[in-house]
């Protein structure tokens, strides 16, 4: 492993101490699991789990023109963002291809926080700087900040134990600052699991304290520290896309079925023309969720997708769903075959096994 694969979050020592299995993830070394993916997954679905998301990038843009500038770079509409609110959005290249998917928060009238994928942080920052044109003050604060995702139906109980029973927590997609033992904790009601949950951001040197306080206070709620393994199964059950797998510069948000987060009414943003065209005339391929029809090996990225003897696509994400105990995945499939209910075959080690295109999400709360 090169040094490049060894970036550590401020919680690295805590993960090792808890006996996590550490793996390279892009440039980072991250916990893939502690007690086990199944156990961690179920903890998030039934109680609460905590994930280290300190590797994610945090960029800030400030200034009187910052909002208008971001509106010409990102696909969703910044003008709809009240102070203290966030939205899911895309950063596209001129071809409409996805550089990154991210959440942008308006943290003050003229101040924005962009929470981006770890592996794209440098690229996003360089892209934004290239298009900056002196219209905002842009900073990459990633190294100075840590983050935790706390997810699961018991998250509110846990947060109240942490910041006080009277504390009013942010509503869905909102972000709020809390004083916590002398430090500023930004808490956003967002997540990547399909459960109620928050993402909390704080100065990196406080990471171990916040992490350990969350685990201690969460103990009687059945909390588990959770790794990238459970993060992946949880998000895939919800059909949330993963950048680098389901999203890439070769695909645009319309193909990915995420046009909802693209505001084509905006007169101008990078990639707009390509997306307007894609929306009007359709795309050659569509990202679809599919479920294996019988018990068997789970689907994996890069497996070929067939229909009636013809290769029609490729799997981008796949796993055995811990909640459903079935193979699930997502694939780019030729649009003619991309309807819900269409029968597909997934080629697994030379065998073509039956699958069916489903509606999002796979997992619905009981």
């Amino acid at each position, binding site marked *: 492993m090169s040094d490049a694969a060894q970036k550590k979050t401020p919680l690295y020592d805590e993960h090792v101490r808890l006996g996590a*299995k550490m793996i390279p993830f892009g440039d980072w070394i991250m916990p893939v699991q502690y007690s086990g993916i199944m156990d961690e997954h179920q903890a998030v679905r039934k109680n609460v789990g905590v994930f280290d998301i300190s590797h994610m990038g945090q960029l800030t843009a400030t200034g009187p023109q910052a909002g208008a500038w971001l509106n010409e770079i990102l696909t969703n509409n910044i003008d709809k963002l009240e102070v203290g609110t966030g939205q899911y959005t895309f950063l596209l290249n001129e071809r409409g291809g996805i550089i990154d998917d991210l959440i942008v928060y308006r943290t003050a009238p003229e101040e924005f926080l962009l929470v981006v994928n770890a592996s794209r942080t440098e690229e996003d920052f360089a892209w934004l700087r290239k298009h900056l044109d002196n219209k905002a003050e842009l900073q990459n604060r990633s190294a100075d900040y840590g983050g935790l995702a706390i997810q699961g139906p018991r998250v509110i109980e846990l947060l109240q134990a942490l910041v006080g029973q009277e504390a009013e927590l942010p509503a869905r997609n909102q972000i709020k600052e809390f004083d916590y033992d002398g430090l500023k904790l930004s808490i956003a009601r967002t997540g990547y699991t399909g459960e109620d949950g928050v993402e909390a951001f704080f100065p990196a040197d406080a990471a171990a304290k916040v992490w350990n306080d969350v685990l201690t206070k969460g103990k009687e709620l059945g909390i588990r520290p959770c790794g990238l393994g459970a993060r992946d199964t949880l998000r895939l059950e919800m059909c949330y896309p993963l950048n680098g797998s389901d999203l890439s510069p070769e695909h645009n948000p319309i193909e990915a079925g995420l046009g909802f987060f693209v505001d084509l009414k905006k007169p101008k943003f990078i990639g707009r023309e390509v997306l307007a065209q894609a929306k009007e005339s359709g795309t050659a391929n569509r990202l679809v969720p599919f479920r294996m029809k019988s018990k068997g*090996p789970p689907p994996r990225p890069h497996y070929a997708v067939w229909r009636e003897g013809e290769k029609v696509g490729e799997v981008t994400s796949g796993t*055995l769903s811990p909640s459903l105990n079935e193979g699930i995945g997502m694939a780019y499939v030729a649009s003619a075959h991309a309807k819900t209910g269409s029968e597909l075959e997934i080629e697994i080690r030379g065998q073509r096994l039956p699958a069916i295109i489903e509606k999002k999400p796979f997992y619905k709360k009981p």
Partner: protein
Amino acid sequence: MNVPDDLFYTESHEWIRVEGENARVGITDHAQAELTDVVYVELPKAGAKAEAKGQIAVVESVKAASDIYAPVAGTVVEANKALEGNPALINTDPFGEGWIFVLKMDSPDDVKQLKDAAAYRAAIG
């Protein structure tokens, strides 16, 4: 990590129990801990010819598919059908109920080329 003394081992983390002319094969405690929750096992068919170090089965965890290799040359005489319904036996009892297949060895002397428990313990640190 459990490494029973009465078994032979491979570098690719299979264990081998010699039963006369046959070799019972599974994956080690260390291997199952690395793979984590096993969710599917692709078993070899009885009668299949196995080459030493040839891929013969697949063990899939939530995260990934891993090839399993035949430790010695032989013919598959039995596969563990219990794994079809309960692949997690590999996690819960890797050296017992979690066995994967039994080979009739072409040459029982071949096991001498495998690692003993001490050598395997040294290999996994």
